[in-house]
Each structure stands twice: as C-alpha cells, then as structure tokens.
C-alpha cells in the first residue's frame, strides 16, 4: 500500500473551491422549503398585499402601471434577502457550533474561501429570483427590455448581499449580532429602496437619503432592465454597483486573510 501523499494543484485549488461551493449549495437545498419555496410565497403575498393596499390595479407610476413597476423590485428584494441569508447563516452557524474549523483548516486561500461562500449565496439568490419572476410573470407582463441590465444587476446585487452576509457573519459572535445586521441594515435598506414607490415621488429629504442607498441603484437598474424606465441614471447605477462590490470584496478578503474573528 502506498502512503497517502498530498494532492498537488496549481495556483488555484479548484477541487477545494468546488467542494466548498457544493457544500454551500447543498446546505440550502436540503431545507428548500425554507430557503426557496417560503421566500417565493412570501414575496408573492407582498405583491398581492401591496397591490391591494396601495390601490395598485388603477395607479400608474411615471406612466407605468403600478403592478408592472412593483414586480421587478420585489424580485430583486427576494434575491437580495436570500443571498444575504445564505452566506450569513452559513458562517454564523459554523462559528457558533465550532465547525468553522472544517472550512479554515483545508488549504483554501482567502480568495477561494470568499468565492466559495459568495457563489453559494449568488446561486440561492438567483434561484429564488428566477422562480419569483416566473411566478409574477403569470399575472403581469415582465418584458425583458434590456436583458443585460437584468443580468448585470441581478448578479451584482446577489454578490453585494452575499458579501455583506459573509462580512456580517464573520463579524458576528452570536445569532443576536447577525440578526442586528439583518434588522438594522439589510431589511431597512431593502424596504426603503424604492421597491414600492418611485423615488421621484418622495418628499425632498427622503429623496436625498434614498439616493445614498446602494440598494436603490440595484433595484432601479434591475427594474430598468424590465420596464425600460429609471428613477436615477443607468450609468451611475452600473458604477455604484461595481464600486460597492469592489469595496466589499476588499474588506471580506482582508477579514478572511487575517482571520478576523475567525481564528483565535
């Protein structure tokens, strides 16, 4: 019998990265009722409820029927919340239970770790988004006016929220901490992002604040991909998304590299 020898690999540990990614995907697929179906149902309920409460059937937002305006924003909210939930819960649970060492011990670089988690989050976000979009398109038209915008903003938004979840998860020492990030940062930013109304219709003060919210740009750009109408400017949205993601990648990689709150 040969003695075991280390598997050799080049610059990237592809097998390791693929394994971490698969673990991240299996983790949410195993409880798909909570991670896919329930979010889709809740989003559709929000759709029905806000359509009813805000007199959606008759109203128009900037010449677009309110129901068509609302659809893409709700899809994006569902994607964002689920991408965030995937990475944050994965890291926090592993930290609290102690099995984070199983991820830190293998020969995975900071970039490989980050990619494994973030791609897992993007996968869940996109999956929830596609199912929700298909469901909504059964009720109202969801024209794919600018598919590249839909793709760019969909992926960038899921990446942004996956990174936030990863960073928040690393920072959290217990479930209360990550719940605080969810409730004080992610939920308010996503609800007050212009999903339910056009930013242009807001009072002056609120409008200024809304433009400082990165979530506004991802929802606005994503919606532009469907209805061809924007509350901001499409170019600014593309740049804000790219820069925010770059900054978050830098922070996440730094945390993973130094082992901040991961390695004692």
């Amino acid at each position, binding site marked *: 019998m040969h003695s075991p020898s280390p598997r050799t690999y080049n610059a990237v540990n592809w097998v390791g990265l693929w394994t971490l990614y698969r673990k991240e995907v299996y983790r949410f697929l195993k409880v798909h009722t909570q991670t896919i179906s*329930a979010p889709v149902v809740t989003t559709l*309920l929000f759709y029905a*409820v806000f359509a009813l409460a805000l007199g959606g059937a008759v109203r128009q937002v900037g010449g677009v029927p309110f129901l068509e305006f609302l659809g893409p924003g709700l899809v994006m909210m569902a994607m964002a919340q689920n991408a965030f939930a995937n990475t944050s819960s994965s890291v926090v649970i592993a930290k609290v239970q102690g099995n984070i060492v199983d991820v830190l011990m293998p020969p995975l670089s900071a970039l490989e770790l980050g990619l494994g988690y973030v791609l897992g989050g993007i996968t869940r976000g996109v999956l929830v988004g596609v199912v929700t979009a298909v469901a909504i398109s059964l009720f109202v038209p969801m024209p794919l006016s600018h598919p590249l915008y839909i793709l760019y903003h969909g992926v960038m938004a899921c990446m942004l929220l996956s990174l936030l979840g990863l960073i928040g998860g690393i920072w959290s020492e217990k479930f209360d901490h990550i719940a605080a990030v969810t409730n004080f940062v992610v939920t308010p930013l996503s609800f*007050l992002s212009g999903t339910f109304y056009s930013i242009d219709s807001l009072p002056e003060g609120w409008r200024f604040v809304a433009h400082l919210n990165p979530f506004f740009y991802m929802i606005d750009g994503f919606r532009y991909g469907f209805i061809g109408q924007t509350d901001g400017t499409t170019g600014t949205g593309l740049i804000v998304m790219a820069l925010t993601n770059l900054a978050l990648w830098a922070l996440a990689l730094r945390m993973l590299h130094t082992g901040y709150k991961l390695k004692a």
Partner: protein
Amino acid sequence: MAAPTVRPFGRVNWIGAATLLRREWARHRKEAWETMVFPPLLALLYITVIALGLGEARGTEQGREIVAFVVPGVVLFTFIMRAAENTAFSLLLDKLEGTVADLLSTPLSALELTAVFALSGTTAAVATGIPTMVAVALTYGLTLAHPWAVAAFALAASLMMALFGTLVALWARKWDHFGAAFGFVLVPLTMLSGMYAPISALPGWAQPLLSANPIAWAIDGFRYGLTGRADLPVGWGLAGLVLADALMALAVWSLIRRGWRLKG
C-alpha cells in the same frame, strides 16, 4: 441522610407548571433583541413603506385614512407572529434536540402542559405587542376607541396563535416543517386577512373566503378597538375567536395526552 421523598401536591402541580412557565419566559427574554426590539422596528418599517408608497394620496385625507387602516393590522401581526413562534420554536427545539424527554418525564399533566404553552405564548405576544404599540403611538399616533376590544382581541388572537404554534411543533418532525407551517399557512392567512385592505374592497369571490379566516376576525376586531371602524360583526368575531381558542386548546390537550409524535 434522609432518603429523598416525593413532594406531594394536590390536584394541580403548581410548582411544576410555574417552573416550566419560568423557563419559557427565560427563553423569550434571552432573545430580547429578536423578540422585543426588532418586531416593533419592523412594524414601523412596514408602516413607513406604506406611507411613502401612497404616491399622490400622500398628505391627503385619503392617504391618512389608508395609513390609519393599515396600522392596527401591522401591530396585531407582531402579537400573532410572536405568540406562534414562541411556542412552536420552544417545543420543536426540545423535540429535535431530544430534551423533550425532560418535559415528558416530569409529573405535569397534559392539561398543565397545554395551559403553560398557551400562557407562555400569550405572555410573549403581549411583551412584544405593547412595545410595538408604544413605538407606533410615538411615531404615527394611535387612538384607543374601545380599549376593551383592543385587549380582548389581542389576547384572544395571541392565545389562538400560541396554541397554533404548539400544534405546529407537535406535528413537525424537522425544521423544514416549521418553515412550511409559517411560510405556507400562517403568513398567507395573516396577510390575506384584511390586514392591508378592507375586505369590502376585495373581489366578490374572495370575500366569503376571507370572512371565514379567524385571523381576519382578530384584525378586524383589533382595528375596531383602535379606530372604531369594523368591517365584520365585532361580537360574532370575538365569539368565533373564543370558540377557535377552545377548539385548539382541546386539540393540543388531546394530542399531548396521547403523546402524538412526542412519545415512542
């Protein structure tokens, strides 16, 4: 040393019941951020989104009416969710961790267990609902048109949901079942209950369906208590809720007595 003896008690094991109730309350308090701080903030966020999403109706009499209509439902929603989560989470955690044996091996009768869960969920709901009412009163204002109805409907609805949560935990065999019960039953029943729009504004075929939903009776009665406006007969609503409470208590008691999905 004297040999340990059995503590005698009369018809009711008061010390045992009080001990279990204390443990349940400690679980609620330990998660104070999630149980008593975030729900009020989330309620404010929902109301803010509705208020901002009014569009042209903002600042008008009609806009104020819409917000005033939505507020009671959003507030009662925090009672309902907390009551159901409190019992469902606690009992299911015990089941899945195996610590339910500690509960079943104590000299507590099925009736005592049922009473403790009902009381625990109701107490937790009130402990979450009152801060929510205060927060809403300080920001959007809250009237108390009929205080007795506010108290009666909040308590009857919380009790119903505490028992519903217990039933969910008895039925569930894994966390996915918990997610399904909330995502596919409780949240839809709550959101489609006249919470955001008057039942009379719904399509004709949907009205009888909604009028048969106990959560709709609860929200309507609670709204009557706060604002004086009722869409359904208030007295019948309260009678219906009390009947639902009694039937669910009977169901919980008989299932616990048989040890359904608890023993064996």
